[in-house]
């Protein structure tokens, strides 16, 4: 007897679909931009230079005109969404609307900046975005590896911090950046190992364990920082730094070249890792097994996949990646200070969710947060009328809006956070 194949019944959401709700929000943003930003912007030119300073080629627009124009674009995007929009156009239209809103805001800010400062150097902005996003990229990749195999990783913060610390310490002692890099990876995986043992073997609640490990990392590094690094910074906290490597040809591309291809090893490593992990996760045997272990460990076990072994391996690997992410501070930018990660690990966790547990998604999310961070810095530098405290809030506000509003309904790996008990 032929049983008719069951199709998934379409869900009828009524008039206020998600697209329409988002459209309404865009409409409000567009109105705000057109009216408020348009009124506040001055008639000065807003210059977006392609170089690092006021000189050189630039995109120019009259402040008032630009603010109103981009505001209208946002309005239009919202209106299109309120009318009917085919599903596949949702993301592009949303992107256009949001980018236009940000541009409208920038037209106001840049044109209203004090004389001599009313330009925005795009190279600096792009470079700063990547720089600030670096620990987030490494951190959220660590999250992807763990959570795809079914272990919740709240300890990213601790792994980053431990990596930063051991990179600085052993880099200083040995005088070699490479020793520092390896030490950073080992430091991060040490925190990971604890996470793995307690959550996989002793079945401790993974979120609680993650928080405890963050505190542990903070405590250990803080203590050793005061005892060793502060008393003898020369010996223990003066790690050598990776220099910038210029990639021939690519570094000559306008804007992107100087921003992306004159970076240090961490920038290149992050981009390569995103690509490698993405391909590995979705196209290799290891990836298939990892995802099966994160979705349905019992099924994987009945097919001879070693569930616990694979989880151990991935969690430790994740720690190594986060550790290297921590070293992207101490082996390239600053010397170690207490609690120097300052919550970036948690933003990385948000990037992981915002990026829907995929490496490329996490990269984009991390860049988004990095941009918000960079924007706050820039606006502070041009003496924006918006108080500095609000600017400091910007990245976190963006995080909340992104994770709560834009992500919609995402599905974590089904077995995420659930220990696997055989039999």
């Amino acid at each position: 007897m032929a049983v008719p194949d069951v199709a998934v019944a379409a869900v009828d959401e009524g008039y206020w679909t998600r697209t329409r709700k988002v459209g309404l929000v865009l409409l409000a943003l567009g109105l705000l931009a057109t009216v408020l930003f348009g009124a506040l912007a001055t008639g000065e030119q807003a210059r977006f230079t392609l170089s690092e300073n006021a000189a050189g080629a630039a995109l120019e627009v009259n402040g008032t005109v630009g603010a109103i124009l981009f505001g209208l674009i946002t309005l239009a995007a919202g209106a299109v969404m309120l009318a009917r929009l085919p599903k596949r156009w949702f993301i592009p239209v949303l992107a256009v609307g949001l980018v236009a809103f940000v541009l409208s805001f920038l037209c106001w800010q840049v044109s209203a900046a004090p004389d001599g400062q009313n330009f925005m150097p795009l190279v600096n902005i792009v470079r700063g975005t990547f720089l600030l996003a670096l620990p987030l990229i490494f951190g959220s990749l660590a999250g992807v590896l763990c959570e795809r195999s079914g272990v919740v990783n709240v300890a990213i913060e601790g792994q980053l911090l431990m990596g930063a610390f051991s990179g600085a310490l052993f880099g200083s002692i040995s005088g070699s950046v490479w020793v520092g890099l390896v030490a950073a990876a080992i430091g991060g995986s040490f925190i990971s190992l604890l996470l793995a043992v307690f959550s996989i073997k002793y079945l401790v609640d993974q979120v609680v364990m993650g928080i405890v490990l963050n505190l542990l990392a903070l405590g250990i590094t803080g203590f050793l920082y005061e005892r060793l690094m502060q008393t003898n910074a020369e010996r223990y906290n003066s790690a050598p730094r990776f220099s910038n490597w210029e990639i021939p040809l690519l570094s000559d591309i306008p804007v992107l070249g100087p921003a992306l291809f004159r970076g240090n090893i961490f920038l290149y490593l992050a981009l390569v890792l995103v690509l490698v992990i993405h391909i590995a996760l979705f196209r290799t045997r290891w990836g298939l097994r990892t995802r099966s272990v994160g979705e349905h460990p019992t099924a994987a076990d009945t097919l001879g996949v070693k569930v616990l072994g694979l989880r151990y391996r991935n969690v430790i690997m994740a720690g190594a990646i986060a550790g290297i992410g921590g070293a992207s501070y101490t082996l390239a930018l600053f010397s170690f200070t207490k609690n120097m990660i300052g919550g970036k690990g948690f933003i990385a966790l948000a990037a992981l969710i915002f990026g829907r547990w995929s490496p490329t998604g996490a990269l984009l999310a991390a860049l988004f947060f990095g941009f918000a961070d960079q924007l706050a810095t820039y606006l502070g530098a041009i003496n924006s009328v918006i108080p500095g405290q609000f600017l400091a809030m910007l990245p976190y506000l963006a995080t909340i809006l992104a994770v709560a509003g834009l992500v919609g309904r995402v599905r974590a790996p089904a077995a995420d956070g659930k220990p696997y008990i055989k039999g």
Partner: protein
Amino acid sequence: MEPGEIHALLGENGAGKSTLMNVLYGLYQPDEGEILVDGEPLKLRGPSDAIAAGIGMVHQHFMLVPVFTVTENIMLGAEQVRGGIAGFLDRRRARREVAEVSQRYNLRVDPDAMIEDLPVGIQQRVEIVKALTRDVDLLILDEPTAVLTPQETEDLLTVMRSLKAAGKSIVFITHKLGEVKAIADRITVIRRGRTVGTASPQASRDELAALMVGRTVRLTVDKTPATPGEPVLEVAGLVVDDDRQVRAVDGVDLTVRAGEVLGIAGVQGNGQTELIEAIMGLRPLLAGTVTLDGQRIDGWSTKKVLRAGVGYVPEDRSVDGLVKEFSVAENLVLDIYDRPPFGRGLSIRPDAIARSAKERIEQFDVRTSSAQAPVGTLSGGNQQKVIVARELSRPLKLFIAAQPTRGVDVGSIEFIHSRIIRERDVGTAVLVVSSELDEVIGLADRIAVMYRGQIIGIVGPDTPREEIGLLMAGITPDSTGDAPATTDGVASGPEGPGSKDEKA
């Protein structure tokens, strides 16, 4: 086991069938004894050893990753790869193999379909293909028919016959006598972890049942014709979503009258759970009304619904029905612990609770070492009796029992069924939901069949099984297709008092 043999393993729930097979599949380690394959003792350290030895298993709960495609699920653990240590998946080769195997054994599956989009019958087929691509000679099917419609069961039996013809041996674990008689070459009956006998498929159903339970049992429910009175529960236009915000109940109208049993039949996952939870106030209604004795109860809290005279046996007793760590006595008063004589002001009165527990345990034949034993230590059947005892200890207008005998031994089934009928006979309206068609047919005075969130038909209990089976698969007699059209019964409505209910 002989090659090309179908060997049925028959036993009650909890008799040890699944445990035995999990040992065979290497998931559990035996404490004693050995397994012989072709005369050689076999030591299984894990499922991969079992697969290597040519043993495959289709588990009761499917071992498929819902967000993977059919091909991905089948290749998992035995991936075709290229590119050396990088191990890139060779999906094309895997797909070809899936297509080949499914063609050879006539098991049609779409290699690129997502598992979560497939109906259970097809998912099971994927499981079988998965085992076959691993070149097994012995296939263990653990309760394969529990989640299938009668038609899907027929399909499965056909598949089993063709596998047998291809020389594969099959162990078929079940507690359903009809299927065993239809297909098995040899039957082994297990009770409490021991083989209690072997039988041939010619043995009668009663003989097999007696062997299974250890005494003679009645397989039918004794009852007199119902004498329905006024409508007690009226559900109109009910719309409910499931946990994933997917429409689960899509416009259900139902009436249950005093003194009748309305049975809801249907394959699991067609909205029965959500329907009952919505009536009980456990799940928000998106549209529609629920009326109890003329009073709107939708939007009420569950506590208020219970106090209004509704008894409720939830479908998953260990999650929703009992607090496992609490004692039998405490579980017996979970609903009324705060009322006299059990509670007074801020305190509860243990002596009153203990006294009432003793009574209930006797009345409902709960087998427990003491009233103070944690309820989790009781067998499934006795746990269920505790719930039934609790719910039937209040004066009721409406009694709702969801899967009242799931995972319950045959003796307790008999007892619970007789209690349900007794409740009907004192004039309570009874709503029974079960995925066991036999149970619904045995208990109900009218049968409503649910399919994809709708009541697809309401029929009398004398309707032929096949017809109800077709309804469960979503095929109504008037939408003929390739279904044998039986025109009486559904279209004209059931004879007797329920006939005002037209199907939704």
